[in-house]
């Protein structure tokens, strides 16, 4: 009877409330750790550089219009944003585990799923603000320089970049759940980034030549890589044809037409959902300390 009375008196926090509070903690820790500020600064500086260079290469005298700048920024996004998101995800659970904070948080009335979602939401918000800051500064300077064409393309690019970053964040979290040490998690994250950015590109090119790969296979391999899917979708939105991407792009234009965007969207969403699901599954039974 006494136990029952105590039970009634003690409120148990809801899932949404715990996820939001844990997300808030991630936001504060990210700002404190300064990685977020440094990555954002690097993104802004490189973005401005790319904007200026893309205009110069096109024969202009200064900063270019939105659409042309967008095309230049796509390659920058593929390099910087996935690295930022993968490291943020990979460092989160592994470093909490290393400091004993993971076990401490889970000894509170919270669940593993709430903790994982809290980290995903918090770090997702950090990445969104970083991406908005990076593109926002570029857009503001372009507008100040008198460019007025196609800002909608840039807004689309921000949305696609955010979706790509969520996929890489989820992958980083899955890595973080598996790794015992933060340094190991960061190492695996950098290896994953290198594989997706460079090795898959060069590997597909080499494979296409050496194995006389069929165009369907080449296109499937390209599309499975979230960065290539991002690039193709972003180019479609920038009113550029996929022909510029070579045989795989030509194949996509010829066979899929307007439906290509749906395929790329599906791939990017799958890269968010599948790694997050794997992370949740592994985190539900893996030892926390």
């Amino acid at each position, binding site marked *: 009877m*006494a*136990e029952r009375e*105590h*039970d009634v008196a*003690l*409120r*148990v*926090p809801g899932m949404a*409330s*715990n996820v939001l*509070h*844990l997300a*808030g*903690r991630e936001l*504060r*820790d990210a700002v*404190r750790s300064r990685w977020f500020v440094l990555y954002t600064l690097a993104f802004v500086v490189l973005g401005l550089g790319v904007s200026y260079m893309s205009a110069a290469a096109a024969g202009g005298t200064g900063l270019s219009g939105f659409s042309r700048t967008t095309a230049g920024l796509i390659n920058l996004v593929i390099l910087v944003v996935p690295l930022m998101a993968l490291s943020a995800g990979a460092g989160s659970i592994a470093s*909490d585990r*290393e*400091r*004993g*904070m993971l*076990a*401490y*948080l*889970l*000894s*509170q*009335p*919270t*669940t593993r799923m709430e903790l994982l979602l809290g980290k995903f939401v918090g770090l997702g918000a950090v990445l969104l603000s970083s991406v908005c800051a990076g593109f926002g500064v570029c857009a503001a300077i372009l507008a100040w320089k008198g460019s007025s064409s196609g800002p909608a393309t840039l807004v689309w690019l921000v949305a696609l970049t955010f979706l790509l970053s969520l996929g890489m964040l989820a992958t980083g979290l899955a890595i973080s759940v598996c790794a015992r040490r933060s340094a190991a998690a960061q190492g695996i994250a950098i290896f994953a980034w290198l594989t997706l950015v460079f090795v898959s590109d060069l590997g597909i090119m080499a494979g296409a030549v050496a194995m006389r790969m069929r165009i369907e296979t080449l296109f499937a391999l390209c599309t499975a890589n979230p960065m290539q899917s991002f690039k193709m979708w972003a180019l479609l939105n920038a009113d550029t044809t996929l022909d510029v991407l070579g045989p795989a792009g030509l194949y996509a234009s010829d066979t899929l037409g307007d439906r290509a965007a749906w395929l790329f969207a599906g791939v990017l969403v799958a890269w968010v959902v599948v790694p997050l699901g794997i992370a949740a599954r592994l985190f539900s*039974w893996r*030892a*926390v*300390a």
Partner: protein
Amino acid sequence: MIDIDGLRMRFGRFTAVDGLTLHVERGESLALWGANGAGKSTVIRCVLGLHRYQGSVRIAGHDALRDGKRARRMIGHVPQEVGFHDDARAGEALRLFARLRATDLPDVEGALAQVGLRGQSRKRMRELSGGMKQRLALAIALLGDPPVLVLDEVTASMDACGREELVGLLARLSDAGRTLLFASHRQEEVRALATRVVVLEDGRAVRSGTVADVAGVIMPRVRERVAFAQGGNHG
């Protein structure tokens, strides 16, 4: 208040806890005593629902795994060491954990004052000593007035003075009727806090009783010295 039945926990081939059964009554203060690797911390982690185990652990009737949130809401936990972010402030940590425990915290300073940390809410973690951090962890454990306190070697990384203060605080909480389950291998801590001691060896409870009942196990050196001194006098 805490019911453990047939608890078994394995890490690969190593059996950390081997069929442990014990019951902690309301208001009781139970010490888990044993050498390093005896299974004390593993039992504590199972009580907190941090491990997947075989057997049953219930806190005030709530299963630690299936109804973990409710079970843990009944528990205030103080670990051996807490890895707060170095730049986080004491008051901010207290507020975060109050929200996670669904507890109103109108008076941060008051909550800190009850563990001897009055005026420290703006201090960053890197400015707090090990003992102060442990007292902050105790303040967090007391948020929402949980009926059970679970402590895992809480004084292991503290100096003698800090240890004495923290044990004094815990003794007052125990006297006030709170249920305590704690792991320790410090005799003075067990003597000051425990109403019952369970001696663990290789994950099994080998003895159980009051401090006086198990004195031969937890204070062998003292007994050896007394025996040696008595032998010397007789000789």
